[in-house]
């Protein structure tokens, strides 16, 4: 796990140029399929509303950018209608028309999946298939798209949707993992949990949310003494091959830089300090130190332990002092 986090940090510097710009907006579509039983309807609705609430309240995604299509009629009013195939297509069409060129399109599918003929999510009326979504997503020519399919048997969606500027997350690694999944519960929970932000930079990346959910799924199965029957995958390098565990060079690199919130929320950024040259210098120094620490960590295995620790401590102290100076100087 430490390795994964380190990877995210290292990558943060490396891919800064390819990540969405700080002004990018987030547009979110949550689709809940048929539950089949009241307990599923209730659980799916709870996960969906939790995600929507987090997006709005914690991550400041504008309400106008969020669509929630409910699976059960009893929740249709609370949502923006029911999740028919047509409704999903309509929502995406509208979103494509509204989304800024550098926007992040965040699509979450919740429900029961299957693969009769092709991978699908069970909806009222015709099901939503991976093929449908693949076609509709072509309408987003420049945006970064994240699709999170939390349904059972969702693994094959990854291959259908993988591509450039795409982050595809599935709750299972294949269509043969058919049992009901709990990934969705923990994925939604990641956006409310205090401990999902593992690098403590006050932002929750898609990679962190994936990691949080993946690990909580494993923990749940272990504590229930059950055999793990869902293995979540992430693919963000467009190679159509998902990874269970992200790495510093493959899947996870892009997801580490994708956030629900539009733009940085760290209290002090270079942009925010434009009118205060001294503050800007501190922020530059802080950002530089963070990069240096990340680089130092990549050299760890080739260094003497004592030298590494000494250097690390010195840099961390300098970073801590710099952060304090920024705090003291700038407005909150």
């Amino acid at each position, binding site marked *: 796990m430490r390795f994964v986090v380190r990877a995210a940090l290292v990558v943060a510097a490396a891919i800064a140029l390819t990540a969405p710009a700080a002004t990018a907006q987030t547009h979110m579509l949550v689709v809940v399929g048929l539950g089949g039983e009241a307990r599923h309807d209730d659980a799916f609705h709870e996960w969906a509303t939790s995600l929507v609430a987090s997006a709005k309240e914690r991550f400041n995604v504008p309400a106008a950018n969020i669509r929630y299509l409910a699976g059960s009629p009893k929740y249709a009013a609370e949502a923006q209608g029911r999740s028919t195939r047509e409704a999903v297509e309509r929502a995406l069409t509208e979103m494509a028309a509204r989304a800024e060129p550098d926007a992040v399109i965040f699509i979450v599918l919740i429900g029961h999946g299957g693969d009769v003929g092709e991978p699908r999510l069970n909806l009222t009326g015709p099901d939503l298939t991976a093929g449908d979504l693949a076609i509709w997503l072509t309408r987003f020519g420049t945006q970064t798209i994240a699709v999170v399919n939390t349904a059972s048997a969702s693994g094959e969606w990854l291959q259908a949707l993988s591509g450039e500027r795409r982050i595809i997350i599935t709750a299972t690694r294949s269509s043969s993992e058919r049992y009901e999944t709990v990934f969705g519960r923990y994925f939604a929970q990641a956006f409310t949990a205090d401990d999902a932000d593992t690098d403590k930079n006050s932002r929750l990346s898609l990679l962190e949310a994936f*990691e949080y959910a993946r690990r909580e799924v494993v923990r749940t199965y272990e504590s229930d003494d059950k055999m793990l029957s869902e293995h979540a995958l992430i693919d963000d390098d467009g190679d159509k091959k998902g990874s269970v565990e992200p790495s510093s060079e493959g899947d996870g690199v892009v997801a580490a830089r994708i956030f629900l919130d539009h733009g940085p929320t760290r209290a002090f950024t270079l942009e925010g300090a434009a009118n205060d040259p001294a503050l800007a210098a501190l922020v530059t120094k802080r950002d530089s130190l963070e990069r240096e620490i990340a680089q130092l960590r990549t050299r760890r295995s080739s260094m003497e332990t004592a030298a590494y620790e000494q250097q690390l401590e010195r840099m*961390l*102290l300098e970073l801590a002092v710099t952060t304090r100076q920024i705090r003291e100087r700038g407005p909150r």
Partner: protein
Amino acid sequence: MRGAAVGSTLALLALGWAGLASPAALEAREPAPVIQARSGADAAQVAFLAGQYDEAISQYAAAAARNPSSAAPLRGLIAALREVGRYDDAIAAAERFNRANPDSPELWNSLGEVLRLRGRRTEAEAAFNRAITGRASDNLTARLNLALLRRDRGDLAEARRTFDSFIDVYNNGVTTGRLSSSDLAAVASAVRYLSVYNPQLAKDAVRAYQEAIAADPTNIDAQVELGQALLEGYAGSEARSTFEEILAKNERHPRALLGMAQTLHFESSPEVEEPARRSLEINPNLTPARAFLARLALEREDYEEARREAERALEIDSTSLDALAVLAGVHYLQGNTAAFEEVSRRTRALNPVATGLYVTLADLSARSRQYDDAVRFAQQGVALDSAAWRAWAHLGVNQLRLGEMAAGRRSLETAFRGDPFDVWTKNTLDLLDDLDLYPETATARFRIYAHEKESALLGPYVGELAEQAYDALARRYGYRPATPIRIEVFPNHADFSVRTVGLVGLGALGVSFGPVIAMDSPSAREMGQFHWGSTLWHELSHTFHLGMSDHRVPRWFTEGLAVHEERRSHPGWGDDIAPDFLAAYSGGRLRNLRDLNEGFVRPAYPEQIGYSYQQASLVFALIERDFGAQAILDMLALYRREGPNADVFRGVLDMDIDAFERRFEQYMRERFGRAMAALGEGGARGERAGPPAPPQPPSREEVARRARNADDFAAQLAMGHLLFAEERFDEAMPYLERAKELYPEYAGPQNPYRLLARIHQRKGAPRAAAAELRTLTRLAARHYDAHIELADVLETLGDTAGAAEALDAALYVNPFDANVHNRLAALYESLERWDGVIRERMAVLGLDPVDRAGALYRVALAHFRAGHVQDARSWVIRALEIAPAFEEAQGLLLEIAGRGPR
């Protein structure tokens, strides 16, 4: 490398055996031979094959009388007489024939075989030689028998040369097609003995037996040998099928019955004795069956019975190495050194390389928990014969039990090279591969090995409790076992089982070999079913008992005393006294104290073993009450001096065991009389007792009717549950209170305490609720949820220390809930118990949290508040290494830096 090579070999062999021994493969010989009784000899054979031995004897004798110069009926007669144990009659018949037909070599081999069964080795050897030199039709079998005689007297090189020659015999015979069924069986046996040196030959032996059987489906001897070969190759189910097939045709075949008993023993079946005893009903002189029963008696620590059986076997065959080995074991385990030496000397005189003696002694020593001796005997075995693979296996396993891990592995690898089909060895070596990856947690006197996923969490808790237990037990016993003691904690019960017995399926939770303790991790069991703290205390108690008695304490004693120690250690530890135990006691379904050990080693019914633990533990409660703790120490000392058969009741308590039993009965009546009476008629009669499960009571009316009897515990409890479910709490209370009065020690799943606590909570009486929950957890500390509920209640009452104590107690049942650790850390923080805070923050870290940086920071903070500035510095840097932008951690680092440099 080993795994791959062996895996494929095993797979091939398994396939080979399965194919050879399966009913389909045996189809060729499956149809029972329909032999028309055209002559007396034929009728005799029909009777013989059907197990009608008296009839067969009579028919064969008549046929022989009709044709006194023909060997065939005499051979049949000798076989029939031999099968029922009339060896001397068989010898006489053969000798009569040989005298009357001095030029015929045909019966010399048969005579030799029977002489060998009577232990007349020299005469047998001469007889086999006569058969060979006379070119008898069964001279090949005579050659095999001669080689076996040589092997049995330790002339291994010569025996091996002869066995080797059978391969040529087979190859030539196949070419010429001149090998009879008996010849093929002889080849099979020779190849089977050669497989000691080349394990792959075991498969060829099986195939050759198969060919022998195909050549003559009535060759039952070949079938019996096939079964034995399969059993030697650890193919238990195939062996069982083979013996079952023989018995389907002749349920009275003594050697097939014995083979079945041996197979059942291999399978650890409790019904092992019955077929062996039946074999003796048919052939009371079947020496291997006597030796086998003697061995079983020894395994259940019934030394007298073992000695009797072994001596009876030796009366029949004074050269029986198996019987001598058991007899040596009896004397060794009873501490009779002179007799032991005498039997050992006698064995060596018969066979100077009798490794079987040492294998048996090693096995028996280990079964009697004398692992040092097991190692010593196994070493003697391998010193005599480096190809004694079982001795190597025993050596390795027992070295591991003593914590000699590297040496143990080497020995097992040697065993495995020689016998790659030994599942015990393979399982153990596979386990060792995993165990190598278990990180070590070291404390002053313990080395703890838990799986890497659990080590960081469990290591500190196990270490802390083990240290506490060591101190407490050392004070109590005035004895300090050698340290470090090794503790292995397995998250997979099958791994624990393999560590203990080499196979999966062991029902126990933990085991102590003295210097090594192995146990299930709490993650290996369903949560709430396993109090790992209590188990650890139990096993460490054994380590003390074994050390103090020089490993000579009988099982009932150390098990009962260990449970007693659990109960003494903490309130609620050790199993509570359950209704079914009381019912079994009052119903007379427990063992008498005189044979209480049988309840452990040979329970009469599955539950009896658990009851025996309870019963034995109560024996110690009584001894300590009436005679003091010193009596227990004196008993252990007496075992050390006199061995496991020491009469500790007479020697220490100055009363015989029957008198003590009467006192025990009185104690049980005093302590549980009311509860037993309240359990009702079922309890009194020993039927299943205890409360009916409240969710499914017989009917409400029935329960209500029975509950009018205020002395009916089950009805009071059931009525309380019913009314609680109906939310008629005020009405439920008196029933629940009455159930408590009647059987205050009942802490089972339907206990009244939990409901009463909930009622008190609803009524706004948290103190009363806390009292109920505290009572419950002090009766049975395994109630995880009750600990948590108690902590909740106490926290609302502002009893922070009490709440912390309750949560701490819960961790001995389930240490895997991060919320409980975080909560306990917070409670310790408010109590300023920084060591506790650090422990709990470390536990969260051990649970591998998603928020690792946060967990590291909290460890750092705990150290900082405890005044451990340098530790705090180290931990906070680890947090920031992961999350450099973590501002709270940065603040702590600056604060630490403000205290000055390192």
